[in-house]
C-alpha cells in the first residue's frame, strides 16, 4: 500500500524509483541510489549531517519523506560542482573526522549561492544548523571565508 513511484533529479541525473512513501530522502539517497556521501547524524534535524540542497534550498534529508521529494532537483555532496568549497575545506583543515563535512559543504554551498561574500556573522548563521564535534568551527569558517575571498 505504501510503495509509490517518485522521480528525482540528483546531481543532474534523472531517476525513477518505487519506494515507501515515508522512506526518508536520506535513505533513498544512501540505499536506493548508493550515494553514501550524505551522512546520518542525529536523525532529528538537529545536526545537519544529512544536509542536501533540494530545489535550491538547504534541507535536512532525514526529515523529508520520499513522496514529498517527488519531482525535486537535488544536489548532494557527490555533485561535481562543489570542488572549490571542498578544496578550501581540505586546505584549511576544516575536516577532521569527516561526519559533518558533507553537510557543512552543502550548507556552505547554499549560503554562498545566496550571498557570495558573507560576513563572519552570516557564515556563523548560515552554518548554525550544522554541528561539528571536532574542529571548534573556526577552520570551517576559515574555509568558507577562503571561498568567499575568491568570489568576485
Amino acid at each position, binding site marked *: 500500500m*505504501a510503495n509509490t513511484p517518485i522521480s528525482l533529479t540528483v546531481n543532474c541525473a534523472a531517476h525513477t524509483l518505487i519506494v515507501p512513501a515515508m522512506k526518508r530522502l536520506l535513505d533513498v539517497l544512501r540505499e536506493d541510489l548508493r550515494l553514501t556521501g550524505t551522512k546520518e547524524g542525529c536523525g532529528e534535524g538537529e545536526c545537519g549531517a544529512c544536509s542536501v540542497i533540494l530545489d535550491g534550498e538547504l534541507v535536512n534529508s532525514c526529515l523529508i*519523506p520520499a513522496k514529498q521529494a517527488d519531482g525535486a532537483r537535488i544536489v548532494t555532496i557527490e555533485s561535481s560542482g562543489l570542488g572549490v568549497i571542498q578544496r578550501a575545506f581540505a586546505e584549511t583543515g576544516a575536516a577532521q573526522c569527516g561526519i559533518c563535512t558533507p553537510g557543512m559543504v552543502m550548507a556552505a554551498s547554499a549560503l554562498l549561492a545566496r550571498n557570495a561574500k558573507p560576513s563572519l556573522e552570516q557564515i556563523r548563521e548560515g552554518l548554525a544548523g550544522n554541528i561539528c564535534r571536532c574542529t571548534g568551527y573556526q577552520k570551517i569558517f576559515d574555509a568558507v571565508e577562503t571561498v568567499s575571498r575568491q568570489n568576485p
Partner: protein
Amino acid sequence: MRSHLADFDLVVAADLPEALRLLVAGWRPIAGGTDLMVLFNAGRLPYRKLVGVAKLPELNAITVSSDMVTLGAAVTYSAIQRHSVMQSEFPLLCQAASWTGGAANQNRGTLGGNIVNASPAADSPPALLVYDVELEFISTSGSRRISYGEFHTGYKLMQSRPEELLVKIHLPPHRRKLNQYARKVGARKAQAISKVCFNAVAEVESSVIKHIRVALGSVAPIPLRCRKVEAALAGQTLSSTLIAHARDLIAQEIQPIDDIRSTARYRTAVTQNLLSEFLGQLL
C-alpha cells in the same frame, strides 16, 4: 525505535479539495515535516496516513493589502524573513523565524505547522499573540476564523477540529507606531529551544501606555498572552513603581515548570527581568 515504513502512507494532495476530503477520511496533514518527521524517525508518530499540503498554492502566498497582511499557513520561516513587508512591519515574527532551527529547518518549517504543533516552547506564537493575528481554517463544510489569542486551550489542545486545515494567518496592520520587543533566552544562540521567549508591543504617548500586549513562550502549558499584566499597564503612566507592580503581576500570571531546559524559578526571574527591560526602554 524506528517506525515500520509499510505501516505508513503519504499522498501529496493535488489540490485543496482533495486535501480536505482526505482530512474527513481521517488522514492528517503534513507540511514541512520538521516536527512530524522527528516523531516518525523516533517511532512515535501517532498517525498512519498523511496528506502532504506544503505545496498547495492557497497555503503558500504572502499577500499584502491596505488592511491586512495574510500569510499562507505553509509559508516557511525563510520566506517570512526574506519578505520586505514582514521585515518592516512585523519584525518580531521575522526575529522568531530566525530563532527557529537552523537554515535547513527554516527552509522547510512552516508557520502554520508551528501553530498547530502547539508547542508551548515554540518561538513564533508569542509574536503572533502580540500581533493579535487571526487564523483561518477551512474544511469541506466551509471556513471560519479564530482569534489566535483564543486558539490554544490547554497543553497541545486547540480550538480546531481534525477535519479542519489551517490555511491562512491574518496579521492586522498597526494603526500607530509601536515599540516592539522580543528576547529569547536559550542555552545556545542558534537552534536551541527557549527557556523563556518574551515578546511585547506597546504604544506610549508622553509616558502614558496607550496600548500594550505581552506574550511569552516556555512559561505555561500554552503560548501565553499576559492579559492581566496588560490590563494593569494600559492607561497608566510609566514609573519605576508601575514596573515593580507589573513584575509582581507577571510572576503570578505565568505558570512555569522545572524541566530539562530550565527551572520554574529561573524562568520567573528571567520573565520579570525581560518585562523590566522592555518597560524600562519605554520610560
